[in-house]
């Protein structure tokens, strides 16, 4: 659909209280960061957030697991 050109996925993080870490609460798909902020605000508004941020998924830099990642987590020590 033409109006869906150039959309990006944004990861949404939020916390309830200032002393808490930001936690992943979901994603939104939006054409730019302004709309991503707006969409996150209305979609994830069930709680009173102290802070909410959106991050373009493309801007997230993966870090390779030091000890083999998921295979180690599932297998234990």
């Amino acid at each position, binding site marked *: 659909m033409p109006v869906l050109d150039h959309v990006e996925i944004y990861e949404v993080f939020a916390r309830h209280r200032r002393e808490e870490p930001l936690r992943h609460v979901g994603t939104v798909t939006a*054409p730019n960061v302004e*709309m991503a902020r707006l*969409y996150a605000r*209305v*979609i994830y508004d069930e709680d009173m957030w102290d802070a909410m941020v959106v991050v373009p998924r493309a801007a997230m830099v993966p870090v390779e697991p030091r000890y083999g990642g998921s295979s180690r987590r599932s297998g234990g020590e």
Partner: protein
Amino acid sequence: MSDPWVGIEEDGRSTLQALVHSLAENKKLLGRRYSEWAVGGPTLEAAIALSAMTQDELGHSRVLYGLLEELRGVPATGDADWQVEGWGLSVLTRPFETWAHLIVVTVFLDSALTTLVEAATTSVFLPLQRRTRKMVEEERYHALYGSQWLERLARRPQVRRAMAESALQVFTEAMAWFGPPGDLTPLRAAGILGADADELRDRYFQRVRPALEALDLRPEAVAVPWDRWDPAWRRLRPGD
């Protein structure tokens, strides 16, 4: 409780009642029109945001009808107590046929209503001032939503032309809604509103100018047809 009307002349009271009634009813109609697209937006995110805007508009309407009760000094027992026929701007009296038209109304009409609401946030009439501040905060997101979608849709020449055609009609109706030159001057003088009709029109015009330009419209050429102005209902009578 102190009398909120102290120091406000009779003509100012009736003008304010008409203005609040028009604002309340048109926000209700706008919410109803938004709701018809709240399950039909081009993306799920767009639909959810529009649902929130629907709630905002209906909520604002309810708050304003509550203010109208205070203004009249007569409690309402339900929606049937309010005369609703006649106040609705013609653009809001029928469903929007396209998403692009909805965006045009958001950009060019929702913003006109907000321009008036903003002028009430500094009102010396406290019942009005208290009710309008939260509305302005919520309307910021409506403006952002409208401008972002308009910018995207207007990139396509065919869509831009269709939007320009409907925008001209909505813009003209919105420009008239503030009232003829000199209107609202008593409210401005009494400090109930922060602007009279001409100042509101100018603020609105500055607000929507970028959107007009994005649609290749030359707003200086638009003349408000005051011969169609209906002062009783604060709107233009339907044209030919």
